[in-house]
């Protein structure tokens, strides 16, 4: 599903080059559950952003479902993000003036889905995430755990095949954190490819494949060779 070949991403901080991604080669199969861990500044978020087509590598190849993504236009990348990739962020990034329902609905609105179908899909997702009662609340009327569940709802409402979560439990207490993790793992069991960046080693250990990064390089990939790990090929 995902093929990374000698991927590099370098930022210039003043006149100093920071190699956020340093010759990364990885391959990820559909349905995998992967955790990405490593010290702060090791390039985990950068990797996630490149995988999510939010950032473009300076060199190397990124093939997504066989397509070379580095050649895609902005419109095509936006379309890929919309249809195939879901993001969950540490700080939720909900639109404050929109209700929980409207936030979840947003990708469907951008995609031009008809209102009736939107309503059906969002209602189903609200129920799936136990948010039905909170549907008409604004984000500032929700707890952290509820907000992150809304964000997950928004990430999966387009039924993407790849879900990227950057420290999804970083702002949550342990109870709501484990609720969120349960939801993510349940989505993975239903077939979605899940990549979680985390500092929490307990959470990291739950994944079936562990990638460890230091200074922009993959220093450990356990169990290496992902193909064997694919449970939903």
């Amino acid at each position, binding site marked *: 599903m995902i093929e990374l070949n000698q991927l590099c991403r370098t930022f210039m901080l003043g006149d100093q080059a920071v190699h956020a991604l340093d010759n990364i080669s990885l391959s990820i199969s559909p349905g995998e559950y992967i955790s990405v861990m490593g010290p702060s500044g090791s390039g985990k978020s950068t990797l996630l952003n490149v995988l999510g087509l939010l950032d473009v590598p300076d060199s190397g190849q990124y093939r997504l479902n066989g397509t070379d993504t580095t050649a895609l236009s902005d419109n095509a990348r*936006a379309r890929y993000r919309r249809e195939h990739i879901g993001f969950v962020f540490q700080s939720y*990034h909900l639109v404050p003036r929109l209700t929980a329902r409207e936030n979840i609905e947003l990708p469907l609105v951008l995609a031009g889905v008809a209102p009736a179908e939107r309503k059906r899909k969002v209602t189903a997702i609200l129920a799936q995430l136990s948010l039905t009662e909170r549907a008409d609340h604004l984000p500032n009327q929700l707890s952290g755990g509820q907000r992150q569940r809304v964000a997950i709802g928004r990430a999966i409402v387009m039924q993407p095949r790849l879900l990227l979560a950057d420290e999804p439990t970083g702002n949550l207490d342990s109870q709501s954190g484990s609720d969120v993790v349960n939801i993510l793992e349940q989505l993975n069991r239903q077939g979605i490819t899940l990549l979680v960046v985390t500092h929490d080693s307990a959470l990291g250990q739950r994944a079936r494949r562990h990638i460890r990064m230091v200074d922009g390089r993959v220093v450990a990939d356990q169990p290496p060779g992902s193909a064997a790990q694919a449970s939903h090929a």
Partner: protein
Amino acid sequence: MRSADLLHFNLQVLLRHRFRSLMILLALAIGVAAVNLLTGLGEGARAYVLSQFSLLGNNTLIMLPGKKETSGGMPPLTGESPRDITLDDAAAIARLPGVTAVAPMLVGISEVRFNARARDVVIAGTSSDYFRIRQLSVQQGQPLPTVALDTASPVAVIGSTVKRELFGNAPALGQWLKAGDRRFRVIGILDSKGQAMGMDMNDIILIPVASAQVLFNQPGLFRVLIESDSSAAIPALKQQLVQLMQRRQDGVADITLVSQDAILSAFGNILTTLNLAVTGIAAISLLVAGILIMNVTLISVSQRTAEIGLLKAIGAANSDIQTLFLSEALLMALLGAGAGMLLSELGLLAMRLRFTDLAFHTPWWARLLALGIAVATSLLFAWGPARRAARLSPISALQSRAN
């Protein structure tokens, strides 16, 4: 994105920032209202002047006593009152070739009585030619008799209001009424006619000009209406009149000649000035609105940076973001222009109710122009910020702490 969703999305943004939206709407509305109101007033005034002076055909001249300096500079400081135009002058004018009608006028106000009823009425001394030049007709009786100008016969043609006020439903023809210390026999009643050239033709009494000279004890004429056989002959006639009056007034033609053309072209100049003023006011207020829109869109973009990053993350292309911000500006332009039009329509309605004679209406071209300018300003000034928003890198946008 569907347009209904786009509209809904933008309305939510505008509602969320009520004060900011109101300021912009106000600026846009003032600009649009200024254009509509001023052109509406100008059009109303133009239509009024046209209706007043079109009654005076384009082959008619008005001669007034006294010289009006049109070439600029100070009038001669003689302190003398202008020379009178006499009845003899009018008779001489009537003898000029090409002159088909001459109506001398001497106007005053006098108390008019019939039995116990009395009221102050405008009395105009003139001749039978006046009926021809002003296209007046009588509903009963006959117009002023065609006699020599200096014949002071005691007859009067009265307007319909005068008839009603003095006689009620009783017949007026043949009755004698008293004006000042003189008596006049009513020989005709004018057809109902509106206001024209500042005189209410319903509330007037017409008598022979020689009678008016005696009644008001004044020999000089107030003005002379002169009709030529063709409008093409008017410039030549003007020269002939000046020459004639020069001869008759010992070398100085102390008169002013006014033609419909002159009045309308003078008014045209005023309208041009007015239009320039309108354009200026509109330009200023719309510039203000434009700068407001630019600033607000900039603020909106920076306040919503994180939101832009998010929208990109969930699949909005650069062009979608640009559409989002441009349509927000467009929506504001339309709402502002709508409010401005409503305001100006209410203003003009009030003016129409106050001045019933004047038809104040904004012409369609002005409405479209104001709307077009408002929309163009909004889009023009929102363009830059919207482009900036569209080009934001989604990652740094997401990292912004503004939200």
